[in-house]
């Protein structure tokens, strides 16, 4: 049973979350990539190396391509009858997965952290802040649609190549496809990224003010760490959304995660509890974050962080 993986083009070709899912699909057998965006030879090589034997390349389309991509994907799915279509849970893929489910009248399961595909398809999700694992099986006909949380699988090069590419121009999606992107702003282009940094240092409400986020940055710099945030301080407007770690933000798995003034709400824990090591600094000894921390410092971030930054800088 062929497993399809939807992959959107980024500035650097196929995105890492899609490659993670493609690697997983390839481990089950024949994997097919549906690539949204003009596929260069380099992009095809990357898809092949991660296990795609066939690539359907969806090309053209408007600024917000989800509606048109859905129409194209629905036609391809109808023609080829894949057993499952997996999506990485990124913005555009989430839009396409939701639209496709409605268009072909099949359920989609979101927030998957594991997928088992044999004759059927069983999906594992986490509930209650990751304290319980729920396994859900599809009961109806395929294709089974699954949205996978980033970092659930590792992207692995298997050394394969793509043997077949079919270019599939996106159809006109009419009114549903009519929005236009009139401007694009990049908020976090420089420096270590949350998705790949070895060390992440995050701040929460315990920082007390937007200005105090500079304490996080002052420690991040000598460490070469990426900087993150809880939903509470993103909602408060202290830092941009691109920094949010948690259920509604990014899922991260660095070598070391340093949580500063973070209480440890379920919403946040889901996004970082699988970090290899966790350090927490919080003045409340009862803060839930300490229950997942390998090292907990009960103290005031306003005292600990400046000293930590100073010590790290003096080592360089």
């Amino acid at each position, binding site marked *: 049973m062929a497993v399809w993986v939807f992959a959107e083009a*980024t500035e650097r070709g196929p995105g890492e979350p899609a490659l993670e899912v493609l690697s997983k699909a390839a481990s089950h057998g024949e994997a097919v990539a549906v690539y949204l965006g003009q596929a260069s030879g380099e992009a095809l090589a990357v898809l092949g190396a991660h296990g795609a034997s066939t690539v359907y390349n969806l090309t053209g389309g408007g600024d*917000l391509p989800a*509606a048109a991509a859905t129409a194209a994907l629905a036609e391809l799915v109808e023609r080829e009858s894949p057993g499952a279509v997996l999506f990485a849970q990124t*913005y555009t893929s989430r839009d396409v*997965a*939701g*639209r496709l*489910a*409605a268009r072909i*009248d*099949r*359920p989609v*399961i*979101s*927030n998957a952290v594991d997928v088992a595909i044999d004759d059927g398809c*069983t999906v594992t999700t986490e509930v209650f802040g990751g*304290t*319980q*694992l729920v*396994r859900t*099986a599809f*009961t109806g006909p395929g294709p089974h649609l699954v949205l996978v949380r980033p970092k659930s699988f590792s992207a692995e090069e298997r050394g394969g190549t793509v043997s077949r590419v079919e270019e599939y121009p996106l159809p006109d999606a009419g*009114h*549903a496809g*009519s*929005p*236009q992107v*009139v*401007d*694009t702003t990049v*908020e*976090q*282009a420089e420096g270590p990224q949350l998705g790949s940094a070895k060390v992440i240092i995050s701040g929460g409400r315990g920082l007390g003010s937007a200005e105090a986020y500079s304490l996080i940055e002052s420690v991040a710099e000598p*460490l070469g760490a990426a900087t993150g945030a809880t*939903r509470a301080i*993103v909602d408060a407007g202290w830092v941009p*959304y*691109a920094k949010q770690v948690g259920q*509604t933000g990014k899922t991260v798995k660095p*070598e*070391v995660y340093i949580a500063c003034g973070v209480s440890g709400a379920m919403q946040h824990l889901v996004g970082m*509890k699988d970090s290899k*090591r966790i350090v927490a*600094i919080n003045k409340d*000894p009862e803060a839930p974050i300490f*229950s*997942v*921390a*390998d*090292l*907990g*410092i*009960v103290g*005031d971030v306003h005292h*600990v962080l400046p*000293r*930590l930054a100073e*010590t*790290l800088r003096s*080592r360089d």
Partner: protein
Amino acid sequence: MQILVCVKQIPDPASPSSLDPDTSRLVRPPEQVLDDTDRYGIEVGLQLAEQTEGAVTLLSMGPTGTMQGIRQALAMGVGKAVLIDDPALEDSDALTTAKVLAAAARREGFDVLVTGVESTDGYSGVVPQMTAELLGVPALTFARRVEMDGPALRIERQTASGFDVVLSPLPAVLSVTAGAVEPRYPTFRGIMAARSKPVDTLTAADLSVSCDPGQTVVSVAPAPERQAGEVVEDSGTGHLRIVEFLEAARVV
């Protein structure tokens, strides 16, 4: 302009949640609260209505219970509510929910249908897109800023690296992030008025939607727990302990 805002009553997140051992459904007490993230959608809806001399109607599916959450939403200044409460919908998945909301939206008529990005209890995060597809309209998802631009809607849509400014004709589905606006607090007058606002209740049959989730829970098990480690009181040397830890982890 006719604005519909989808909201959800959820079990109070401050209380412990559980799954029913027989049905694996989330246990929902009668006194559910308004999903906090829905306050942003309500605020956006109210602001759009103020700019266009429009009207806001709430759409909500789920067990009505004591209506505490719906009253919270009405108290912010919404004119009326349409509730879809039917035991036949208890097993609803995201797609069934979207079918119900789309059918109700068609019945009410709309220029903009506002939702949150995802609910706090189920967080499937695909209902807005599904609803848009069923209605054949654009899905302006992950909006962090919203305003009218003549007859069009102008939004800032979150992307992995920042945001895009998107211009869209109406009608459209709009999903807004928490933090998109500063939700207003209900006034005393608003709270009093919420008690007498019109509330229509519909069933699945009224909307010709049936529930077939196409999935079944096969197991629920505790996740492997992470062990808590060493916790030390900072007496001025906590930072040195962190440096030692980072050295042991070979990241400095």
